[in-house]
């Protein structure tokens, strides 16, 4: 009489234990974000957001494409025009005087170019090509093809250690809102951005990753704020394409340039 419930309990516990990995895996699969992503699908809008884009650049590109006067202009010329429009109409009015002092930065000043220093947060999260997302119980691990960079996003709400100095990729905590991964990042060391300005270590960012219904795209919408360089936050977007067959290869042959030309010296 007393042994049966005991055995039953053991069996139940064993079944529950066996179920835990399945539960964790099932939880991981629900968002649909996990796996390998890479360059976006071959459409004009997606390609415009291959590095990053804004609603302003997408709307302007649409305008250019809809105008018959542009039918004979190369597409590359139109996408560059949309990029210039974005720079002047979206970014420049949002920059502080401090950021405008050196804007746009000469690519020859990029430490990644000059000294092979891996990118900081404001470039890395927009890097093209491979981007892998793996979810664990307490964290999400992100790996990028560019620079073979790795990033940890804590899901357990832990706070940044007080004695930890700002780092290139900062301190990130995240949570899921339905199928959307929301990440808040701070404590990023001042560095360069992909939008041609510098930022300070006051930068904060809220990233939102979603996988729309077709499943072929991963979308990022990120709101970036930095009181030193921005008068108001900027909202940037990026698109990846599902790429389960791609791999991240070693990034070990970066060499500082032996020759280059500064902007003012170029024709």
């Amino acid at each position, binding site marked *: 009489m007393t042994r049966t419930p005991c055995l039953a309990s053991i069996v139940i516990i064993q079944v529950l234990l066996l179920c835990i990995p399945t539960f964790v895996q099932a939880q991981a699969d629900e968002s649909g974000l996990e796996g390998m992503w890479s360059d976006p699908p071959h459409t004009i809008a997606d390609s415009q957001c291959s590095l990053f884009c804004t609603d302003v650049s997408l709307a302007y590109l649409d305008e250019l*494409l809809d105008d018959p006067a542009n039918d004979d202009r190369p597409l590359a010329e139109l996408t560059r025009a949309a990029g210039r429009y974005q720079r002047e109409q979206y970014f420049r009015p949002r920059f502080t005087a401090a950021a405008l002092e050196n804007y746009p930065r000469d690519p020859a000043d990029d430490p990644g170019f000059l000294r092979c220093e891996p990118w900081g947060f404001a470039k890395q999260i927009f890097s*093209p090509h491979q981007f892998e997302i793996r979810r664990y119980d307490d964290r999400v691990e992100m790996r990028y093809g560019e620079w073979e960079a790795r990033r940890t996003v804590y899901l357990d709400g832990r706070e940044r250690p007080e004695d930890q100095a700002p780092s290139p990729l900062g301190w990130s905590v995240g949570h899921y809102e339905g199928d959307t991964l929301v990440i808040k990042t701070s404590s990023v060391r001042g560095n360069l951005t992909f939008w041609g300005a510098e930022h300070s270590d006051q930068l904060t960012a809220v990233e939102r990753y979603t996988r729309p219904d077709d499943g072929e795209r991963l979308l990022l919408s990120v709101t970036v704020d930095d009181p030193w360089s921005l008068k108001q936050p900027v909202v940037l977007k990026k698109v990846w394409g599902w790429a389960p067959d791609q791999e991240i290869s070693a990034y070990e042959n970066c060499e500082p340039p032996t*020759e*280059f030309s500064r902007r003012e010296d170029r024709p």
Partner: protein
Amino acid sequence: MKQRPIWLLGILTLLSTESLYAHHARTPVYDASLTVTVEGLVTEFSLFNPHARIALDVTDDAGDLVKWSIELPGKLNLTVGGWTDESVVVGERVTISGNPTYTGSSGLWLQHLIRADGSELLLPGAERANALEDERRRRIKERDQRN
């Protein structure tokens, strides 16, 4: 080894992929407004990150051997387009056009690679560029039909 002369063409030949993948600062090194074409024998192909390289032996107009260094997108980009370590073979003759260095050294940023049989080894962005042009043509057609 008979080689073609080197042509310096002041032609703007930015590919649509230029704006898409100009993520590594190559603009301080290569002049995207110019295209140079060289023909020679491949002596080395290194499929690395962040950039791949082809070493090319070229004989100039004076008959002297000049060693050219051709830079390409990195392995993480080229493999997306199906490139492998065997995509360019040591000893094969190729014609390469690309953007020259500002300093005038024997270096190029690769834009086109034509094999001895006339076929082109396409960069990953070429397929995308074609798809985008197709989409654009469809878009123009649909617009014209609406109007």
